């Protein structure tokens, strides 16, 4: 919702990088250091109005308020799960909405943010995919998912695994990562942020060159024909080529790459899959993250039973692939992986 009395035609300051703020203050005839002061108010303090930027001269605040608004927006709805997970619904303009999941866990709290309203990628197992594509989020709308929830300061990790394919909205995603990690922004360590993709190779390459954040790739099966049935993107960017591209980058240091693997009963959970996965990932410092499948309406897929997920993990581990099983969180509020959608 817009700040009181500020129509949405005013440009939001929230979501601007230091470079953009510097250009703005120059244009407005304000001293150069004002850009850093504004960034500080936007990304480090809990104010919500330009008028509250008290170290700016009153005249400067008035001038800014004529053309700009602060630009954050509060969630319009929250659902709480029995396990502590919370799902927030945010407006994204024109009766469009996005979802964000806050997932607390012992010593950490992870925020799962959306990067698009809906998605164009059409994965067979995903609720967001069923919703179709309604638009890209701006960097401000992405970062707002962190700054406008009450648990902002408890969040230790951010994952771009909500609605949308981040590398289909690369420019705004990179900008949001800059705001989250820059010393003038939120100064989060890039090691606490993971961006998840289905493997849009050109976007992934640019991300790996420009950002230090971790990468997660939705793999789901190493076999071409099977992956084409599950994920149409395989026809444009086959997963073998995605892995080949990843091998050109350095993951031996602190930056990590992981492969997400939703387990479908009788489909991608056989010994052949273990063998092929081990071959595909051989020698790559990485982790495979096995995920339980939570069926969506009308899906022809069912999830692998827990016992077989454990066996699959053990078989991959025995082949030298570091493999973990992700805990399902927020199931009762449809906040688990692949369940986010604002489709009614």
């Amino acid at each position, binding site marked *: 919702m817009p700040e009181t009395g500020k129509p949405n035609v005013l440009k939001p300051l929230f979501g601007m990088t230091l470079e953009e703020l510097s250009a703005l203050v120059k244009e407005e005839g304000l001293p150069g250091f004002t850009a850093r002061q504004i960034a500080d108010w936007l990304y480090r303090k809990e104010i919500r109005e330009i008028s509250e930027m008290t170290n700016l001269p009153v005249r400067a605040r008035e001038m800014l308020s004529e053309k700009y608004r602060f630009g954050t927006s509060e969630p319009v709805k929250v659902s709480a799960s029995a396990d502590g997970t919370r799902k927030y619904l945010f407006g994204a303009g024109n009766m469009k909405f996005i979802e964000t999941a806050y997932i607390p866990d012992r010593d950490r709290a992870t925020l799962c943010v959306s990067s698009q309203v809906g998605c164009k990628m*059409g994965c067979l197992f995903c609720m967001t995919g*069923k919703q*179709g594509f309604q638009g890209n989020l701006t960097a401000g709308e992405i970062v707002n998912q962190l700054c406008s929830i009450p648990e902002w300061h408890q969040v230790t990790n951010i994952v771009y695994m909500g609605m949308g394919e981040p590398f289909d909205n690369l420019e705004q995603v990179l900008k949001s990562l800059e705001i989250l990690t820059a010393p003038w922004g939120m100064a989060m360590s890039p090691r606490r942020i993971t961006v998840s993709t289905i493997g849009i190779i*050109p976007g992934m390459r640019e991300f790996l060159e420009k950002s230090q954040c971790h990468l997660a790739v939705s793999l789901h099966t190493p076999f071409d024909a099977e992956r*084409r049935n599950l994920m*149409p*993107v395989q026809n444009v960017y086959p997963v073998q080529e995605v892995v080949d591209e990843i091998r050109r980058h350095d993951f031996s240091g602190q930056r990590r790459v992981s492969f997400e693997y939703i387990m479908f009963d009788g489909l991608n959970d056989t010994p052949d899959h273990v063998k092929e996965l081990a071959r595909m990932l051989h020698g790559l410092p990485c982790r495979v993250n096995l995920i339980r499948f939570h069926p969506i309406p009308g899906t*022809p897929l069912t999830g692998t039973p827990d016992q077989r997920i454990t066996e699959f993990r053990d078989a991959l581990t025995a082949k030298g692939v570091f493999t973990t099983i992700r805990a399902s969180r927020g199931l009762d509020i449809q906040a688990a992986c692949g369940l986010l959608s604002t489709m009614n």
Partner: protein
Amino acid sequence: MKSWADISWTRAVVSENLKIAESAYLLKFPRTFDFQAGQVVALGTDPDLAPRLYSIASGEQDPFVDILFTEKSGGSLTPMLSRLKPGDSLMVSKPFGTFTKIQPGSVLVAAGTGLAPFMSVLKSGKARGATVIHGASYPEFFYFDEYLEETLKEKYLRCCSRVAGGDWFHGRVTAFIEQWKGLDPGRKHYLCGSAEMVVQTRDRLISRGVPFKNIDAEIFF
């Protein structure tokens, strides 16, 4: 696709750029590479502008490469593409993509320009016994209908969502699929078009008993 810097590309000289319907164009340039029917190329007019992907609509042996595209108002590339004239130059990447495994006897379902890869498959003689279902908002967007009628006869089925009365089904492709008597769950189904069309058509096919393993899709994302 983000930048031309890390993909291999050449310049092609436009041979023809025909407006074939409102906002729809057929762009031609000489073929200087081999490709497989169903593949795409990245196109551009300016190295500073992000490339966009287009399915090749011509046959593997044709002397020219055909690109079927619609101009998007406010789009970054298509307004430039639609202004191209014979003799103008165009940036073209190597062909790539694997929507190439279309089996004979399949059902090819397209909406709008999603027909492009199927035209390539048909013109390359790789889709014997195929049925084509093409959806369009108005009859003028039944691209290549004369060729398809002549080649496929009764296996060329059309759906027009906005206009009733012709020898087509009045409604969307999804509505057609829901009531199609010729549906055979054992056949392979290939879908091409927008995300919305692909997802909804896939849902309808699955609800009518087509195993998801018999459905493959290319989304124009």
